[in-house]
């Protein structure tokens, strides 16, 4: 068996923290990010005996919205179940989850890779609760301990399970980025992987071509970035093929953890017997009826999604495909573009200035779209100044830089420094002066060094701080040199 005679099967499980103010089953704040430990908890999310969970309406609606966006079958009746396991991060020793009646059933997600589209099946989307955060460390006297902060306990968590439809790490990455963009445009989650708002576990198995795919698979955990997912899957693809080559047998079914530092997956074999979650219907929560009315109101509230945004940018704005994708990948930038393009008739020119200069200026000034003073209206005003001949493109770039740092508008800045110089007499005087001050360059030109003309143009531009009309200066210099 050689490396080319294998095929890879990948399925992904994604856990997404939902954008809600309060937790899944109680009214504690779900904003645990910068909180003091154990300050956002109540008897419900601490799992005290006798408390009753009450379901957060927005969490349900966000899950349904996601299901609709993924074309899932929406359950008319759904229920919650208890998933039992004993671990200190689970305050009740059971997690309220959904077992056999999830809110959303089968759907699909279209990914694009190398200009080729592929549908990835969605198995289900269900709702559950997050667990407490654990910190592993040592006590002051050196004993190994674990510290529990229950603030995250009970934060709404949506699980999206894909079919094992992906055949390469590249497809898995495309699936994740496409899914994340949809969640961002739905505004149901921050989908930030570093913050733990978007977590991914992967199932992967590698099979020799010609042998029926079995159900043995390896689960990979501990991947904290899209890059980590990609690298872990690529590593595992290689490792499993090697096992086949060496042993002629499928790799052992197990859970493996990605270790970022060493760039490999390692077995997480534990002495614990196989999981026995003993799911049963949550007795404290009656079944959830999803009415047609709710579904149609969610459908009406559905925002524009990446797929149709892409179509709009290509068909109506006639943007280059790469520019359209770059805008979609940065939602604040797209919203800025959309607002600006309403008032500006040259979408591609707008995109060019945004994606090249503006993005760079923001990066250089260590600011971002939200906190810098340039509004879409001001951006359009700047481009129009150039369109109307008041400034040249060099000045546009310079003004944009100063707009970002000074907070002034292009018009205000032009009023301070003056606009483009297009006055024939004025330009003639400057050109004459430059010719007079640079006899060597003139001599060079006459001796056949044609680039000396460019130098002289540059001197005029420099003397006018870039404000001279470059085309006119070019012409004048040429005339003076007898071209």
């Amino acid at each position: 068996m050689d490396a080319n005679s294998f095929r890879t099967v990948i399925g992904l499980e994604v856990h997404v923290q939902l954008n809600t103010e309060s937790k899944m089953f109680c009214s504690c704040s779900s904003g645990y990010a910068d909180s003091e430990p154990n300050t956002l908890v109540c008897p419900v999310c601490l799992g005290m005996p006798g408390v009753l969970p009450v379901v957060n309406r927005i969490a349900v609606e966000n899950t349904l919205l996601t299901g609709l966006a993924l074309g899932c079958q929406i359950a008319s009746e759904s229920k919650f179940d208890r998933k039992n396991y004993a671990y200190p991060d689970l305050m009740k020793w059971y997690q309220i989850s959904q077992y056999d009646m999830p809110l959303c059933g089968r759907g699909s997600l279209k990914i694009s890779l190398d200009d080729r589209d592929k549908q990835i099946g969605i198995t289900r989307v269900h709702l559950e609760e997050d667990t407490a955060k654990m910190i592993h460390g040592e006590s002051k006297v050196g004993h190994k301990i674990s510290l529990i902060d229950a603030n995250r306990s009970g934060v709404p968590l949506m699980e999206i399970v894909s079919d094992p439809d992906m055949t390469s790490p590249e497809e898995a990455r495309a699936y994740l980025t496409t899914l994340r963009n949809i969640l961002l445009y739905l505004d149901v989650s921050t989908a930030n992987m570093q913050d733990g708002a978007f977590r991914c576990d992967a199932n992967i198995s590698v099979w020799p071509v010609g042998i029926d795919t079995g159900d043995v698979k390896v689960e990979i955990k501990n991947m904290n970035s899209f890059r980590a997912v990609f690298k872990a899957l690529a590593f595992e693809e290689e490792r499993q093929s090697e096992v086949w080559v060496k042993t002629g047998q499928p790799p052992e079914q197990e859970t493996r953890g990605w270790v970022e530092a060493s760039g490999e997956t390692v077995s997480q074999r534990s002495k614990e017997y196989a999981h026995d979650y003993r799911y049963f219907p949550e007795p404290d929560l009656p079944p959830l009826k999803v009415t047609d009315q709710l579904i149609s109101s969610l459908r009406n509230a559905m925002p524009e999604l990446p797929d149709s945004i892409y179509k709009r940018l290509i068909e109506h704005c006639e943007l280059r495909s790469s520019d359209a994708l770059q805008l979609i990948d940065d939602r604040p930038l797209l919203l800025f573009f959309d607002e600006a393009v309403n008032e500006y008739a040259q979408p591609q020119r707008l995109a060019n200035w945004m994606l090249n200069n503006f993005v760079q200026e923001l990066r250089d000034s260590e600011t971002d779209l939200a906190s810098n003073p340039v509004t879409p209206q001001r951006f359009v005003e700047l481009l129009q100044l150039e369109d109307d001949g008041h400034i040249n493109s060099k000045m546009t770039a310079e003004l944009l830089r100063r707009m970002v740092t000074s907070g002034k508008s292009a018009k205000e800045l032009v009023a301070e420094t003056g606009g483009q110089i297009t006055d024939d007499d004025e330009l003639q005087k400057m050109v004459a002066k430059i010719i007079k001050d640079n006899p060597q360059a003139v001599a060079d030109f006459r001796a056949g060094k044609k680039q000396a003309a460019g130098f002289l143009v540059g001197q005029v531009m420099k003397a006018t701080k870039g404000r001279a009309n470059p085309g006119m200066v070019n012409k004048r210099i040429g005339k003076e040199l007898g071209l």
Partner: protein
Amino acid sequence: MLDRDTVNHVAQLAYLALDDEESSEMRLQLAQILDLFESLSLLQTDQVEPTARVIPLELPLRDDEVKPSLSQDQVLQNAPRIEDGHIVVPAVLTDS
């Protein structure tokens, strides 16, 4: 009759350490409970919609509003050990 392995498995899931005598006793008691539930299968349910509940209630939904939580002192008052506002538990196996 419930076999001994099943009893031990259930005990393990519940983190209970049973000696042989206790295990035998539990086996008997659990078997009786299961028998009792088995009697439910005598009921004719062909015409009854499957349900997980016997009380016809619909799920009430809550508006997404934050209400005050407990104070940290209240949260930690039953914790056997505390460190820097955290509940301390014996080290559990970590992933690494």
